[in-house]
């Protein structure tokens, strides 16, 4: 993942980082915003944060729905802004 400045990329661009943490492909998982209830596939959610980390922001209300940071020690995931995530099994 490599992001540019203040312009977002799509959640799909974070696919590689996700696969470092999760066995399933999370870009096709759906996520419900805890703030406004909007549901979206993670691959479609705008991601900010440049090279510091991936900050996912809800299309409906701009609130942070998920954050993922990789540090030399491991991975930090925050999902306070999400109510539910559903990841479909592959195959």
């Amino acid at each position, binding site marked *: 993942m490599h992001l540019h*400045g*203040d312009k*977002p990329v799509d959640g799909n661009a974070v696919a590689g980082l996700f696969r470092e943490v999760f066995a399933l492909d999370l870009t096709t998982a759906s996520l419900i915003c805890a703030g406004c209830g909007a549901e979206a596939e993670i691959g479609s959610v705008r991601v*900010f*944060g*440049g*090279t*510091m*980390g991936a*900050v996912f*922001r809800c299309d409906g209300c*701009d*609130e*942070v729905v998920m*954050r993922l*940071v*990789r*540090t*030399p*020690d491991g991975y*930090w995931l*925050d999902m306070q802004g999400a109510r539910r995530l559903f990841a479909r099994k592959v195959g």
Partner: protein
Amino acid sequence: MSDSPVTRGFKGRRGPQGPASRIPPGQHLTTDFPVLSAGPTPPIDLASWSFELQDGDTTLGEWDWDEFNALAQTDVTVDIHCVTTWSKLDTHWQGVTIDTLLEAVGLAEPPGPFTLIHCDGDYTTNVPTEDLVDGKAMIATLYEGEPLVGEHGGPARLLVPHLYFWKSAKWVRSIVFGETDDPGFWEDLGYHIYGDPWREQRYAGD
């Protein structure tokens, strides 16, 4: 990592190392001003802009844009260091120091040992009070003599140049003093609680 093959012909774009006395460990010089944001750049609306100083829930002072700009202005030329490894030398800022703000609300001493800085877009960062006073920090509104543009945090950003630049929060709206050091947006997610570039405090545990 170490077993990655070297790619012939790939140099990378790291700036020069620069003078060791001014470039902290692991940093490289840059001449542009890379942008890093945790959210979309909010539109600048000076008419509704305000800045607040708070002690917990108590408002100590609040300024609109004109009032804020009427406060005593300070110029600084400082080096800045981003945790993503670029450093930029001799950047020139103008704004209002935290000392000036405390004075303006009639306080000889800051009301608490820690602060949480609040910004548009729900960004927060924590800075110990002693790192904000005695001329160490300001709310900057001009960069290189020009009004600070939105993508660099305009109309106003915190400037705490002796800490990693994520602490110099963009689109700043209030400083809240308190008794505890509560982690901000990045400090809560793997980044160092204090962030001293000279001690290379990038991540929690560094």
